[in-house]
């Protein structure tokens, strides 16, 4: 068992594309759920739309990489409008069911053989990297320090990812301290009260849905940037993992989603390296290596339950500011 390698991998995951992608999606979810109180269980669909929008526009329509990013964003806005205009009038738990169902519909549409030529059905999409990598200003080779040593493409993906994440966090920070954010938080507390004060609650919810949705789509794009688009990723579990990351950091905080995503992936990476190593070295004799991988996800579920029950405000949230409104 190479403990140093395990620790190195673990530390390296702080800057992993998956971590950045989760952080972006969690920031989007913070806008939806943490600030506005929208119980969106379809963040996986936003990520799928971002990823497929990016990959399809590059592969099928030959757009440059930034064109693909724009398509992903526009796709998420259209999805927000289609999803939001009819559903935002619904009660919280109904919205949850509608969004989770809509996310499954989106996933199945990407997965079906009927559109294989465009979506790649079960195989997903890959080989859309040329334009993105051609835009890389970094020199070839491998550089960095310690665990943060990546090749040129690796750095390019991370730099773009962190840049997008920084912009997203900045936007959320600035809007949530404004009067706009005040209305949004008011809606989370009691939308009828806000309505009675002459605010167009529906319009605000839709704006929040679009804003958070864009971050979700960007998360999907960052997830797809280094490797491929695989339909098996965008399942409802993904939504729940992002929720876990969000609640870990603090749903109604600016940096909570980022912290949560980092912790989520650090722990995941650590366990996914450590547990099989323990199995191989005979310290966990009662399980196989594949069982030890499953164990990680069991722990995610348990962690989600414990978090919601004992620390619903998350690590960064105000103790008084429980983000769950009793309905």
């Amino acid at each position, binding site marked *: 068992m190479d403990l140093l390698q395990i620790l190195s991998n673990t530390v390296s995951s702080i800057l992993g594309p998956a971590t950045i992608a989760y952080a972006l999606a969690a920031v989007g979810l913070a806008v939806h759920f943490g600030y506005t109180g929208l119980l969106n269980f379809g963040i996986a669909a936003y990520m799928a739309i971002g990823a497929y929008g990016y990959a399809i526009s590059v592969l099928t329509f030959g757009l440059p990489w930034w064109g693909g990013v724009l398509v992903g964003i526009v796709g998420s806005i259209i999805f927000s409008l289609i999803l939001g205009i009819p559903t935002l009038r619904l009660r919280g738990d109904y919205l949850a069911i509608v969004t989770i169902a809509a996310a499954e519909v989106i996933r199945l549409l990407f997965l079906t053989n009927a559109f294989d030529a465009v979506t790649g059905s079960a195989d997903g999409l890959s080989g859309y990297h040329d334009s993105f990598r051609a835009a890389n200003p970094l020199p070839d080779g491998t550089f960095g320090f310690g665990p943060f040593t990546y090749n040129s493409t690796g750095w390019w993906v991370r730099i773009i990812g962190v840049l997008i994440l920084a912009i997203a966090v900045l936007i959320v920070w600035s809007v949530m301290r404004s*009067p706009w954010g005040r209305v949004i938080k008011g809606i989370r507390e009691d939308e009828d009260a806000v*309505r009675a*004060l002459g605010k167009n609650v529906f319009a605000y919810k839709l704006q929040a849905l679009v804003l958070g949705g864009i971050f979700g789509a960007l998360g999907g794009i960052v997830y797809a940037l280094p490797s491929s688009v695989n339909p098996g990723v965008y399942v409802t579990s993904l939504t729940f993992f992002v929720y876990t990351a969000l609640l870990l950091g603090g749903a109604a905080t600016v940096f909570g989603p980022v912290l949560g995503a980092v912790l989520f992936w650090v722990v995941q990476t650590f366990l996914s390296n450590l547990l099989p190593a323990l199995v191989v070295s005979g310290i966990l004799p009662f399980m196989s290596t594949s069982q030890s991988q499953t164990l990680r996800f069991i722990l995610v579920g348990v962690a989600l339950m414990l978090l919601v029950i004992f620390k619903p405000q998350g690590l960064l949230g105000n103790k008084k500011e429980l983000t769950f409104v009793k309905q």
Partner: protein
Amino acid sequence: MSSNETPINEAPVQREKATNLHKGDIAPGVAKVDPIIIADGIRRTFGGLTAVDVDHIEIPRNAITALIGPNGAGKTTLFNLLTGFDKPDGGTWTFEGNSLAGMPAFKVARLGQVRTFQLTKALGLLTVLENMKLGAKDQRGEKFFSSMFPALWRKQDDAIEQRAMMLLKKFKLDAKSEDFAASLSGGQRKLLEMARALMSQPTLVMLDEPMAGVNPALTQSLLDHILDLKDEGMTVLFVEHDMHMVRHIADWVIVMAEGRVVAEGPPDEVMKNQAVIDAYLGAHQDVDLGVVTGRVAGEIPEEAQDLAAEVAALDSAIRNRAANDNPEKTS
């Protein structure tokens, strides 16, 4: 907790009542000299149950009108209908000459007709000051794109904050301005909700049971605030159970029963009206209506009541020990 424990007639100031509000003989639906709201043929049914069926009603301007009636008379439903929070099966109604039929609640509020809620809707996880600032109308910083640039809205926001602090001082909440609204007492929340409504500078203030659950110590100040609204040129329409309060501050009283307006008139005359005594006071004349703060019974569907009764009859031996630990339920 009952407001009746503090007799209202200890009130230090007796202000003059508005009179001569109506035209012609007093009867349900009588025309007013200067109506602010005129409603015709408002009907609302839930399933088979008719909650509201009002042929004609006018609310006098710059006066305090009380809407009273027994539980389930349709007072809150009428409030919801007038303010756009619920849609009637049919009917027309106007506010200062503007038709409100089909208008969403937020637009009604923008016209200057704001309301409070029976179950107080203080925005618990916003501070008291944030609650107040939310009430102000036409804020530039509430538009999404300008919200990102404080330069565009900072000045207006400061002005709003000043006004909010003045109102908070008046309502004696200024010391709490940085606390979460959730930390306030029930009565303070009522005050906050009223103060927040005033931030939008309304012409008509609609208060749904402003006294429900208010600590007796706060009752008098709340009453004074309501009377002040009239002095400042506003019109007040409120739902209340407390007869003493109604008699004390209302200029006009509208009595509802089973969804209809059964009587209206100046408070003293309405209290003598036999229809009112029958419909409302009836057998409960000696019951302290001020303590009736919950109004659940009128809203439970009949079949549920039957079912519950049936179950109770089937096994009356079950001890009543679950009352304290029934589960959370969506409402």
